[in-house]
């Protein structure tokens, strides 16, 4: 393809679903990319005015400063519970939670599992950067074996701290979940893929297909102690080795017809 074949149809403009303020995340941080992708999809699906987002506790706690639609800031780990209360109260709204690895895979493990299991018709974005960013780089439940953090000075030792949790693989075993996938924001290709999955997850909610979670591997150069370029390489070589990208569950049937009602009667019939 020659350069002259490229037709510029529009210049890049900021998503309407983002407020006109600069991001204050660290250079090379994945949150800015992920925020932008979510905002673009919300614009493209034309759902900004009926979307309610939930910010976690962690670096993205200030997500409400950036997203230009209704936002709730919930307690650490509790966004899936808060989202349940919201979606059950306002079923016509689009409710999503945005959670980090400490929020979703440590303190909020109970909430995420049970929201998925109830097949709550919500969308969860799980940002996995293998560290506690906001508090200064302590071990996360997703920290890799041998990875140095401020609470694993000689590297994560699995005999005392266990193995990193693969949340997507776990949640994919849950009957109530409709869409579970892992992607990353380390390369243009993966960023495009992430956007596609984000769009798919929102569409599933719009079509009442039930619970979806998109796990996004995201670099944290600051707490990893790397340049952004080196962080992208580490993410690809180390994180993706342990956390395989892919779609772990995709059950595109209507949750109301399948998972919730006939799901039960199907079990009854098989007994």
């Amino acid at each position, binding site marked *: 393809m020659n350069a002259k074949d490229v037709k510029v149809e529009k210049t890049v403009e900021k998503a309407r679903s983002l407020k006109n303020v600069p991001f204050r995340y660290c250079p090379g941080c994945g949150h800015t990319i992920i925020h932008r992708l979510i905002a673009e999809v919300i614009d493209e699906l034309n759902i900004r*005015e009926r979307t309610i987002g939930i*910010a976690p506790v962690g670096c993205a706690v200030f997500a409400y400063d950036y997203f230009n639609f209704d936002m*709730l800031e919930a307690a650490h780990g509790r966004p899936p519970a808060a989202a349940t*209360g*919201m979606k059950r*109260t306002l079923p016509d709204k689009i409710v999503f939670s945005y959670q980090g690895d400490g929020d979703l895979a440590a303190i909020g493990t109970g909430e995420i599992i*049970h929201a998925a299991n109830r097949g709550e018709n919500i969308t969860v974005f799980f940002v996995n950067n293998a560290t506690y960013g906001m508090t200064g780089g302590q071990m996360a439940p997703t920290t890799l074996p041998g990875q140095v953090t401020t609470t694993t000075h000689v590297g994560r030792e699995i005999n005392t701290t266990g193995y990193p949790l693969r949340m997507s693989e776990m949640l994919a075993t849950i009957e109530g979940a409709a869409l579970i996938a892992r992607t990353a924001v380390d390369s243009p290709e993966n960023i495009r893929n992430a956007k596609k999955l984000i769009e798919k997850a929102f569409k599933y909610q719009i079509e009442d297909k039930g619970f979806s979670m998109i796990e996004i591997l995201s670099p944290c150069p600051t707490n990893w102690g790397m340049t952004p370029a080196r962080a992208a390489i580490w993410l690809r070589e180390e994180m993706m080795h342990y956390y395989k990208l892919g779609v772990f569950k995709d059950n595109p049937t209507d949750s109301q017809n399948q998972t919730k009602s006939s799901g039960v009667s199907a079990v009854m019939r098989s007994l």
Partner: protein
Amino acid sequence: MNKALMKGNEALALAAIHAGCKFYAGYPITPQNEIPEYMSRTLPAWGGAFVQAESEIAAINMVFGASACGARAMTSSSSPGISLKQEGISFLAGAELPAVIVNMQRGGPGLGNISASQADYFQAVKGGGHGDYRLLVLAPFTVQEIWDLTMLAFDKADEYRNPVMILGDSILGQMMEPFIPTPYMKPALPEKTWALNGCAGRQPNVVKSLFVGEGELEEKNYVLQDKYRRMKAKDVRFQTQDIEDAELIVVSFGIAARISTEAVSMLRKTGKRVGHFRPITLFPFPEKQIHDLARRGAKFIAVELNAGQMVEDVRLAVNGKSEVLFYGRPGGGVITPEELYDRLKDEC
């Protein structure tokens, strides 16, 4: 109007539904299981949503989400479960969200027992979770009052944008008693313009309890304190019996107040000048009224199903103007009217 006969727990659930509760989440724990059971049977038919949560923590956070969307929302539990909810209650207070939280107290500390207790008084009236906040705390003492105060709780929560606690106990929750199911009359309340329901035609709303800008949280706290002052100025509720000429005034709330009224009546029959003062709001506490009675020279005795908690607030109210005694039983021990009569008869 015909009387109805229901358990306290069931009357509470039905009153909540009549008051427009549209969301309930809870987790089973004795002695309040009739509340989630009743809600699960009845709330959906009234257009509300019931969720049996995976934990008390999840339940209170579901209420947090529903309330942020503008719905009248409630959760209920008993002592150990209320301890788990404290995180969420602090967040509700910090985000200035209305909610109704029911504590049908049981014996503690720890797993304790399922007998009647009032040992969560401190937790209810002094904040309970982290930070400088208060709940408006209502203490019913009959099934009728459970009905009436549950409806009031929803109105006050919306009026103040603050969580309201109904502090009962296992006897009040489990007992059946006839009551008049008076219809709910909704007062004029401000529109919930802050609610998260989609930003169509307006700027986005944010509901949060995080205020990190310089001086921002201090300002927020002054707003909260001003709210608590308004509660103290206009929402103190109490009831008295035979206090006009009383030399000894029994102060008790909830189930202990039922026991006390019986003992006071027995003493009155023997000519003793004894009266009874029953706080209905535990926060705001009727401190001015008790102080005025103390200045008149009356002696007080706080009677509680705990080791002595409200007595501290009585002492603060009395502020040294007269003597304050205490009689109580902790750990689910229930005082009998006869036992209290014996304790009181030589004090007056």
